């Protein structure tokens, strides 16, 4: 059975793939499903949901379409989650490979830096970085990557330390490959699988961190995010609770989808070796 079929055959994997599939499709198709700027005024303010067929989820305080925000917000969440996780894994892989391969002094120095990044709460670090660099989508991605690269770095280093003693690395050394070439061509690719499993968890955490930053008003003001929608709805929590509740459900669905798929993938891989 192929990996994908094993993944979908478990109930958790199927549910996760369904959730992620819907959200990914929404994110990709948002400009067509709801054309135009999602931040424009679309109708009367504070229209309750399920009253106007043109605005099924109602409108917020400024008369903006909640459904449009929800669709475009999926886009932001996924972009930030994937880009931040990719950047974190990239930085972590480079630092981890260099630390594991370069030997004592460099290793010691790099690992103290990793320690420093791990003892500062990631969210505080991201908060400080965004406050310095300003709230744009790029800086938010960078801030989240900065708060998340330490864990993959540690993992890659541990993998590299165990792989560098293998015979094929010795063989590469004997045929005269450059140490950097050995590190990044021979060792890193073999150290990656456990890191990719961690990457799923980083995606989920990145989506949650982005939402929290936007909720505090530190995200990109020109982009719709689920976090900023919740924050905006909070001002009218009593009169229009749906404004805060609806985007939150989107967040839970996206993060849960990532968790379910990563768990099912782990199970499918674990079973893969056995008959």
């Amino acid at each position, binding site marked *: 059975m192929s990996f994908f079929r094993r993944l979908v055959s478990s109930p*958790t994997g199927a549910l996760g793939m369904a959730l992620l599939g819907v959200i990914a499709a929404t994110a990709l198709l948002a400009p067509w499903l709801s054309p135009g700027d999602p931040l424009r005024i679309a109708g009367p303010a504070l229209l309750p949901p399920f009253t106007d067929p043109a605005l099924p989820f109602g409108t917020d305080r400024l008369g903006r379409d909640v459904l449009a925000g929800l669709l475009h917000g999926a886009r932001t969440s996924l972009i930030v989650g994937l880009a931040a996780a990719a950047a974190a894994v990239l930085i972590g892989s480079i630092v981890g490979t260099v630390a594991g391969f370069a030997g004592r002094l460099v290793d010691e120095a790099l690992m*103290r*830096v990793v*320690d*420093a990044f*791990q*003892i*500062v*709460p*990631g*969210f*505080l*670090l991201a*908060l*400080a*970085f965004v*406050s*310095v*660099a300003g709230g744009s989508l790029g800086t938010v991605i960078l801030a989240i990557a900065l708060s998340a690269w330490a864990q993959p770095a540690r993992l890659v280093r541990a993998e590299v330390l165990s792989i560098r003693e293998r015979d094929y690395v010795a063989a590469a050394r004997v045929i005269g490959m450059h140490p950097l070439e050995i590190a990044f061509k021979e060792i890193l690719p073999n150290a990656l699988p456990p890191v990719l499993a961690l990457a799923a968890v980083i995606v*989920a955490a990145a989506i*949650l961190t982005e*939402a*929290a930053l936007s*909720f*505090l008003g*530190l995200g990109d003001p020109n982009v719709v995010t689920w*976090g900023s929608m*919740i924050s905006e709805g*909070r001002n009218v*929590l*009593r009169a229009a*609770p749906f404004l*805060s*509740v609806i985007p*939150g459900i989107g*967040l*839970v669905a996206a*993060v*849960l989808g990532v*968790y*379910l798929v990563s*768990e099912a993938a782990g199970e499918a891989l674990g079973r893969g070796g056995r008959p």
Partner: protein
Amino acid sequence: MRRALTLVRRRAISAIPVLLIVVVATFLMLEAAPGDAVDAYLLSAGGGDAALAAGLRAQYGLDQSLLSRLILYITALGRLDLGWSVAFERPVLALIAERLPTTLMLMGSATALSFGLGSLLGVVAGSRPGSFRDRALSIGALTLYAIPGFWLGLVLVLAFSVSLRWLPIAGIETIASGKHGLARAVDIARHLALPVAALGFIYLALFLRVMRSAMAEIWRQDFVLAARAKGLTRHRIVWRHVARAALLPLVTVLGLQSAGMLGGSVVIESVFAIPGFGRLAQEAVAGRDAPLLIGIILTSAVLVILVNLAVDLVYAVLDPRIGASEARG
């Protein structure tokens, strides 16, 4: 006891370079920001001329070079002087000392809730791995873990404060209530109930899952088979043998989640308007208060180190193998 002392000494020594990196990195990061505290002050004061700005900069030492300010800051740190908060016009250390107890109370209660309830439910799930009960609890925990803390807080407010009117919406205690002693404690507890739940429920899922998977692992070990062969009841095997052995990894998670919870408290304190340490971080960002922000980041790093040290000490007590080699070396 000697083992513990050696552990503490070793950790303290290894913490110093790491904390130094934190200080330098944070300092440089905040230096890169456009504008400084004087700009922010002038903005809030409604403007001022260049001479006033230069005077203020000289007064706060902002006109000196980067390196000399960094060295000045680090030497002051040696005297436990964290500098002067421009936004609050008070010493940073005093501000942090004033705000920290509230957050420690919040985090302590949330940890107790998540550890207690999470490990208990983890035992329920892990007592029969693969059963329906286990599957349901595991999926439930995963869902809980996917919920953003601030949103959970808002939903709890909607349910228990707006609809049911059981609990207060925000704050740490009723303002000018004149309550003392027990009445005041009850008042604070009522205010803290929802924030603690919002912060704790998410980590409850973490403890549940770690407990459950540790137990699933332990069921396969020989000593469990031996306990079964002796004819012990299932109840006794679950509680006295499997769950007890699974507590050790749970203690590790206790240390690992402290940094996450400290970060989470920033958002939760903002949702519930609790004047704590996390809220202070947000206020420092809003006020462009670099000395305060460095102080906050440094304090949280020290806090995380202390929590992890405490966890290691507990670990050394629970498992005599840990730290034995460190003590010898």
